[in-house]
């Protein structure tokens, strides 16, 4: 079957190939056949249509980017299908512009064996919207005691290992994990938190937690762990990837480690870039997330880290929960934000509109570098590459309506917020897997 798709007249931003120009992307048989200077198309000024047997997507005024790769997604399946299923998560992913998500292993059971990895990948293939890659657990049952069978997990296709949510606290075990993973050239992904320092904490320790009488998690709970892990990465030569960093001091530690040639990468989430602990307001559990929303100083340091390349990737930490769980007492409610469907718009609103980042930089953090960290072929619009493409309307103003999310998790502090920009068409392997229903102002 020879299928031809033309994405016509958009601004093609492909940092992997240093491309940023108005062009037509030609897709044949699910792969990028060519990128040509834009030919002002004749009959199709009024939207999408067919031309010479090809499907034409009119992308004028839009950004055409390699599909986004999320390094940090909680699919919840197996185990908590009431919060999210692989199908609803992948539907949420493509509506947010993500063509690949990396599933975190804190499912029930944890992803600590080949069987669970295969189950997740098979179900994702059946759903077929976005690609689901898998991050396996570092320790069996994420218990922090015994290493999982790394070789078996990587052979089954894992792109990294993490005990996310439960930091690897034992220093010798972390050393062994970083050391052993070297032969696979894959990262150990750490949720950097000193469990004793953060014990019982439910938000950032600062002026807001002090006023509200809530137990705080100090920034030091993160930086203590990051400093230790950098020392271990230096000792072992292993690859450390620090998940969802939240503190100004963490940015400094990682910047310094990179300068010293230590193999460390990291990610930050849109909510840590957009919000501070003030979002907790009067005990809003929708703003309860771990690591916690911190101060404006931290937020600005993250932006700086993104701009100067210290922070390699933007990852959602998509963490769907049921409404009733988030209705609990603040200190009992679960941590997490449903992030796939707002990530891009939050980034455009907070980073592009404020000129903190230019478009190529944002696409690099959403597609190019996360694909490199997961060692995937995606994240590039090179000729011959699989056509995973996200078309973005960069100026569309819309209001977040969590009740209309594709995700089962409606837990977002951005509900009812006005944001700018969104994915309007998403292709995976050249097939249209998402198309925005309303093209106009939402």
């Amino acid at each position, binding site marked *: 079957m020879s299928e031809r798709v033309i994405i016509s007249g958009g601004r093609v931003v492909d940092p992997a190939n240093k491309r940023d120009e108005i062009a037509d992307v030609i897709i044949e048989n699910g792969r990028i056949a060519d990128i040509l200077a834009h030919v002002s198309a004749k009959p199709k000024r009024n939207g999408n249509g067919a031309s010479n047997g090809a499907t034409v997507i009119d992308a004028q005024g839009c950004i055409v980017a390699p599909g986004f790769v999320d390094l940090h997604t909680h699919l919840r399946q197996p185990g908590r299908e009431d919060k999210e299923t692989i199908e609803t998560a992948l539907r949420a992913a493509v509506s947010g512009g993500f063509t690949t998500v990396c599933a975190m292993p804190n499912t029930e059971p944890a992803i600590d064996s080949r069987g669970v990895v295969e189950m997740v990948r098979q179900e994702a293939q059946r759903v077929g919207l976005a690609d689901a890659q898998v991050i396996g657990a570092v320790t069996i049952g994420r218990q922090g005691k015994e290493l999982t069978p790394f070789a078996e997990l990587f052979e089954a296709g894992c792109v990294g290992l993490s005990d996310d949510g439960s930091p690897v606290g034992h220093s010798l075990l972390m050393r062994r994990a970083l050391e052993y993973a070297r032969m696979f050239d894959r990262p150990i992904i750490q949720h950097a938190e000193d469990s004793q320092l953060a014990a019982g904490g439910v938000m950032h*320790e600062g002026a807001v937690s002090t006023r509200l*009488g809530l137990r705080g998690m100090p920034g030091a709970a993160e930086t203590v762990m990051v400093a230790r892990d950098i020392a271990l990465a230096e000792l072992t030569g292993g690859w450390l990837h620090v998940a969802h960093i939240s503190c100004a001091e963490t940015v400094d530690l990682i910047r310094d480690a990179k300068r010293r040639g230590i193999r460390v990468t990291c990610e930050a989430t849109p909510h840590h870039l957009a919000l501070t602990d003030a979002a907790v307001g*009067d005990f809003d559990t929708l703003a309860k997330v771990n690591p916690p929303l911190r101060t404006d100083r931290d937020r600005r340091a993250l932006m700086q880290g993104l701009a100067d390349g210290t922070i390699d990737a933007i990852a959602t930490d998509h963490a769907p929960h049921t409404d009733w769980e988030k209705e*609990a007492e*603040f*200190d009992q409610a679960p941590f997490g934000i449903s992030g796939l469907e707002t990530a891009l718009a939050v980034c455009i609103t907070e980073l592009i509109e404020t000129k903190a980042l230019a478009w190529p930089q944002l696409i690099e953090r959403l597609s190019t570098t996360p694909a490199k960290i997961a060692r995937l072929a995606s994240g590039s619009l090179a000729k011959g590459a699989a056509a995973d493409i996200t078309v973005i309307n960069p100026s569309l103003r819309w209001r977040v309506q969590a009740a209309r999310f594709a995700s089962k998790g409606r837990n977002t502090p951005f509900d009812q917020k006005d944001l700018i920009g969104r994915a309007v068409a998403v292709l995976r392997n050249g097939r249209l897997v998402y198309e925005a229903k309303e093209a106009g102002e939402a």
Partner: protein
Amino acid sequence: MTTTVQDVAVSPWMRKDLLGLWELSADEIRLILQTAGSFREVSERSIKKVPALRGKTVVNLFFEPSTRTRTSFELAAKRLSADIINIAAQTSSLSKGETILDTVRNLEAFNVDIIVIRHQSAGVPHAIARKSAASVINAGDGSHEHPTQALLDMFTIQEKKGRIEGLNVSIIGDIAHSRVARSNVWGLTKLGAKVTLCGPPTLMPKHLDDWNTRVTFDVEEAIEGADVLMLLRIQHERQETTLVPSLREYRLRYGLNAERLARGKPDVLVMHPGPINRGVELDSSVADGPNSVILEQVTNGLAVRMAVLYLVAGQGRPPSIEEK
């Protein structure tokens, strides 16, 4: 009888709930104290009951054990002729598979008018108030606020000293985990008192820039020049071992005894929200001594809680109290 609370022209009470003193204006606090002054007199009559809340239903919903506060609210409601029921729930609702809001929706189905709630988790009264048509009174939420305690403390200070503005009030103890301290800081500073916080650094919050208070780790410094000493209970149940090395060391360094008290102003008031740890934060001789107003605090608590119940139930009408 002269009223002990100065008459201030204030606007009527417009709030559905009393959740904390953080969000109240100085005028709103004065209105509660003024109303409490009127009710204080009711408790001294031979018939201690007024019909103000006849036909209203009050629920005392206590998720934490409490004798003093629960009894005080119960008696206050009864003296206002309200119907009151007590519900003691000791566990987090999630452990039963339902949320706190499910519990409240069940109560709402009985058409209750006022929910008085104490809960070990900060913010629960706020969550309930947002969802419930009933008035919500916070009777203590975690380490957050205990507004009626602070109001009765302020009422007592006002009664004994004739004013609050300009007074030096030192709060000594576990500031970090104390809802009484928070409510008193917001209330007292709004009415113009100069508040000093005193305790070991491990019991002192680190982010106090916007609290408008003075901080000292030295108890002698807190006592010197103080018009009021407010002692806080060292709460064993909220303590990890690492906060203070031992209760003995706390007593030696911060405990208020006769010797330390003698270095303060002769007419300094000694207050405590109770229950007292005799021999820890407060020596028995001081607790029972002439400077102590601890039992007056309890008496005034009743008047303050009557005032609060009355104001949230009536929302806006000025007090009119007739004997039945």
